[in-house]
């Protein structure tokens, strides 16, 4: 446990709370991007260089920008006057608190956290690549297919209205 972890954890949590609780939607999206960046920092802290950088590239570079674009495309004039949460928000908070309590109870009672801490394992890009191309080649192909299908599907869903109007 060092300072880097606490700083990154505090930044990540604060911006995650901001992403969920801020009034302006664009502020939420920007806070989300900061939370993603904080998580990437935590991954780097854990020695997962490749995943951390992929996290920045995919989440900060693509998903956050996508969300921002969606916000721009669905500008809601009435949103400013409406209340922030849905009417059943105390119930939602209670469910979340319950889930958190259950998770913490499970974590603290787990034997896994008592394992001795080992040396920083090396997860070089080359090792990841070799594993991806040997043991995990089928999941990789499936993911590739899924991404292609999702891309085409997203384009078709977003374009549908346009075509039926013509």
């Amino acid at each position, binding site marked *: 446990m060092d300072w880097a972890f606490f700083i990154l*954890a505090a930044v*990540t949590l604060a911006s*995650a*709370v901001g992403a*969920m609780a801020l009034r302006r*939607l664009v502020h939420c999206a920007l806070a*989300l991007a900061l*939370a993603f960046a904080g*998580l990437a920092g*935590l*991954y780097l802290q*854990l020695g*997962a260089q*490749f*995943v951390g950088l*992929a996290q920045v590239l*995919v*989440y900060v570079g693509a*998903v956050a920008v*996508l*969300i921002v*674009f*969606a916000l721009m*495309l*669905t500008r*809601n004039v009435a*949103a400013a006057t*409406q*209340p*922030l*949460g*849905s*009417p059943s928000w105390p*119930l*939602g*908070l209670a469910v*979340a608190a319950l*889930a*958190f309590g259950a*998770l*913490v109870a499970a*974590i*603290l009672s787990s034997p*896994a956290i008592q*394992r001795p*801490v*080992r040396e*920083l394992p090396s*997860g070089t890009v080359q*090792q*990841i690549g070799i*594993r991806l191309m040997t043991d*995990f080649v089928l999941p990789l192909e499936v*993911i590739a297919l*899924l*991404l292609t299908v*999702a891309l085409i599907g*997203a384009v078709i*869903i977003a374009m549908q*209205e346009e075509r039926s109007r013509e």
Partner: protein
Amino acid sequence: MTPLAAYLILSALLFAVGLAGALTRRNAILVLVGIELMLNAANLNFIAFWRYSPNPEALTGLIFALFSIGIAAAEAAVGLALIIAIYRHYQTTNVDEVNSMKG
């Protein structure tokens, strides 16, 4: 507290924040943001378990996190496309107002 427990509790907190947001906010895009946060909390779990596992050479946690990032990207793209399609129909992204089955 061991480092693994700290990472796991942080991940649980992130998950709870994401869940609370997804359940309480009205805007569909923010519901999606909450889901993204929960997915990221899961990713943090994968990586933390990889780091403190008895045999990290297998790299299973890392590769799972990579797959999860890929799937989350696909999910975000489809989800946002759906939200835009809904917005075109109803002129709103408020999930409480989108309650009729007719298109």
